[in-house]
């Protein structure tokens, strides 16, 4: 479908190309509102932060290679360990899954030409980048956050942490939350309103269900973190008493609010991985996903029930059992939706004809890690067990199996899977498989012994340990595993970089995928679809009749929407045609607003409140200018 033969069709495509022409060069990238370019920006930025977080991890592991290690001082260890957590969660995994994969793929999968709010999309990216730089300025100036990624008070209070390290943390996270909230709102409205006509809820790809769940979770979870950080800054900078027991405050307030955010956050981390897995499995097993409604439902349920389990991170703080049982009960039941998904995936794999190419290998690795990590997780739902093992390496093992094994493996598999679509080139399959195995073995060696050493009593977050406790061998194995893991990742990067420049040209649909992104050229044109596609099942690429009908429509000039930067809007439940929307093209206001907002946060950090107000005013002006431009023509129907 890449070459357009019919002259009428070719003329229409050329018209679309002219209408959607991008501004070239660096300025083009700074002012872009194209969801695909923004996805690429997110991808590279989050990969840079992945590298930073990875270096931090290797530093931690090297320090723990032997007892009484001397690689890092205790203070440095605290900073490196904290920044490892903060970077990996807020600056790598969330941005790459929502910002890179979500941004690039969701509009393509629903048959739209862009997100619902393209300029806000760009704004989300620039704010994310700024928030990452903001926090790393702290690290670079010797003020790296150092109280753990969860930053408990009183360690994080002014009394015990007088410098500005925690201010970088708190303000940085509020800043980052603005980016994620804007992105989440964008996804929800896009998925609700911009689906191709005919794509009712029962015909929407599972990938989109995962992102819908992620976005709702972000919208409802982030305020808890933001207000927690606001309370912390008020206590630290203005002497408020939220967390001061002497004045009626309580440190548990921080913990409750943090985990009301923090638990949904971990489901936010894993859900995009579920979405990617449910995209790759049907393609490489040549069959539809088993129990489609239940998998869609499970993705949403995991996020929903996940809001009710937060106090399982606090089973050891001294709350009464009549309180904690609510959370134990919900924590046990939240496993069931995940189990539904696992059974569906396994059944699809077993009853289909699996093709063991690199993307599927990563997904199988994901399933292995997810099952083990999920089992260790459910064990924590039992309060007595949790109280024994809280704050030990057993917990570290559990969440790394889940975050690295189960959340990151599908991302890496997804990088391979969609690489041909995004770049137009094929990666090297043998090197791809090698990179998988190296990473898999490295991960298993790094994180599995942590279960054992945790059961043997090794606490978390310690900068060193004594010898003779039986922990030495395991720690050494974990560090070696970490370096092997790093090697596997380097091989992956090398494979993709070399293939980008030298790989063979990729066809539009190298794997026989089921969703709409495979119906357009590789790499996609700016306007995505020459014809707004007709959708009758969740596997549109496998509906030959519909795709042939689309080609005929292009020739006849139906559903081409080439009157301007146009895309249709549809109704929420059933995707009935509603109106044509005129989309904005390149705009400088998103990056300008983000820069002004950075000024606000920088002045909040340094305490220059007048300057902060100036930046706030400039930001308001930028927002007014942003909304000053109205759509060019009011398209009627």
């Amino acid at each position, binding site marked *: 479908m890449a070459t357009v033969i019919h002259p009428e069709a070719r003329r229409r495509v050329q018209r679309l190309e002219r209408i959607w022409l991008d501004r070239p060069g660096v300025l083009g990238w700074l002012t872009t509102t194209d969801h695909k370019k923004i996805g690429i920006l997110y991808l590279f930025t989050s990969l840079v932060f992945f590298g930073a977080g990875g270096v931090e991890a290797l530093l931690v592991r090297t320090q723990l290679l032997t007892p009484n290690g001397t690689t890092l001082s205790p203070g440095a260890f605290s900073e490196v360990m904290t920044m490892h957590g903060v970077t990996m969660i807020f600056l790598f995994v969330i941005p790459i899954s929502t910002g890179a994969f979500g941004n690039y793929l969701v509009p393509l999968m629903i048959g739209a030409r862009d997100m619902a709010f393209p300029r806000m999309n760009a704004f989300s990216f620039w704010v994310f980048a700024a928030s990452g730089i903001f926090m790393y300025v702290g690290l670079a100036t010797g003020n790296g956050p150092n109280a753990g990624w969860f930053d408990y008070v009183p360690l994080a209070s002014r009394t015990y942490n007088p410098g500005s390290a925690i201010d970088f943390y708190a303000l940085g996270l509020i800043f980052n939350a603005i980016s994620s909230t804007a992105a989440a709102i964008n996804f929800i409205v896009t998925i609700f309103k911009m689906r191709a006509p005919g794509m009712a809820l029962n015909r929407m790809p599972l990938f989109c269900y995962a992102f819908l769940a992620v976005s709702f979770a972000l919208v409802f979870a982030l305020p808890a973190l933001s207000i927690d950080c606001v309370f912390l800054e008020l206590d630290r900078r203005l002497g408020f008493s939220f967390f001061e027991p002497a004045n009626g405050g309580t440190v548990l307030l921080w913990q409750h609010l943090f985990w009301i955010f923090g638990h949904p956050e971990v489901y936010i981390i894993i859900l995009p991985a579920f979405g990617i897995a449910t995209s790759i499995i049907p393609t490489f097993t040549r069959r539809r996903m088993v129990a489609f409604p239940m998998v869609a439902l499970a993705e949403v349920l995991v996020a929903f029930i996940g809001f009710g389990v937060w106090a399982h991170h606090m089973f050891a703080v001294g709350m009464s059992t009549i309180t904690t049982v609510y959370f134990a009960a919900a924590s046990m039941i939240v496993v069931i939706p995940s189990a539904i998904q696992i059974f569906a995936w396994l059944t699809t794999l077993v009853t289909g004809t699996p093709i063991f190419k690199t993307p599927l290998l990563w997904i199988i690795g994901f399933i292995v890690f997810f099952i083990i990590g999920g089992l260790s997780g459910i064990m924590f739902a039992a309060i007595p067990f949790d109280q024994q093992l809280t704050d030990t390496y057993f917990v570290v093992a559990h969440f790394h199996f889940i975050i690295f094994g189960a959340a990151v493996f599908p991302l890496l598999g997804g990088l391979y899977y969609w690489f041909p679509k995004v770049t137009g080139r094929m990666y090297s399959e043998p090197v791809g498989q090698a990179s998988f195995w190296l990473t898999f073995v490295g991960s298993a060696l790094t994180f599995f012994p942590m279960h054992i050493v945790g059961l043997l009593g090794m606490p978390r977050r310690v900068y060193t340990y004594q010898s003779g406790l039986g922990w030495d061998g395991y720690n050494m194995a974990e560090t070696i595993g970490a370096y092997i893991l790093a090697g596997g990742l380097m091989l992956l990067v090398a494979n993709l970089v070399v293939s980008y420049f030298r790989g063979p040209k990729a066809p539009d649909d190298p794997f026989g995928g089921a969703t709409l992104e495979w119906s357009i050229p590789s790499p996609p044109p700016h306007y995505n679809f020459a014809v707004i596609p007709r959708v009758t099942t969740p596997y549109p690429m496998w509906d030959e009749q519909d795709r042939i009908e689309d080609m005929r429509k292009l020739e006849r000039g139906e559903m081409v929407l080439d009157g301007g930067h146009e895309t249709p809007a549809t109704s929420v439940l059933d995707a*009935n045609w509603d109106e044509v929307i005129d989309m904005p093209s390149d705009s400088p206001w998103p990056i300008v607003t983000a820069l002004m907002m950075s000024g606000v946060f920088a002045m909040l950090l340094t305490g220059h409140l007048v300057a902060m107000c100036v930046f706030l005013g400039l930001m308001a002006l930028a927002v007014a200018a942003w909304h000053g431009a109205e759509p060019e023509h009011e398209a009627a129907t």
Partner: protein
Amino acid sequence: MWLGILGAPAAWTAQHVFGFGVTQAGCSPANLSVPIDTWTLIATIVAAVLAIAGLAAALLTYRAMRGTGQDDAPPEGRIYFLSICGIVISPLFLAIILMSGIATLLLTNCHQG
């Protein structure tokens, strides 16, 4: 259809937040006299009834849409799809509601654990 998908989750949310709040109110330094068991029992029963109503609604919708395929055109296909979701959701939430309610009633109030 809506009661089928939203009834049980709403019931659980209400029982969870209310129950948590009641235990916090009753067991905290403020020493407010709160009849924890009574409130917990009421909340659990109301929530359970609502969850069962949700299940019933979902089953009825499913029966009404018998003969529809999963991929069918909206609104029938979409209603059928969401009714299946309701049938799976309601028992799950009913389980959490009953587990937490019964456990809270059986345990000694305000005992630290």
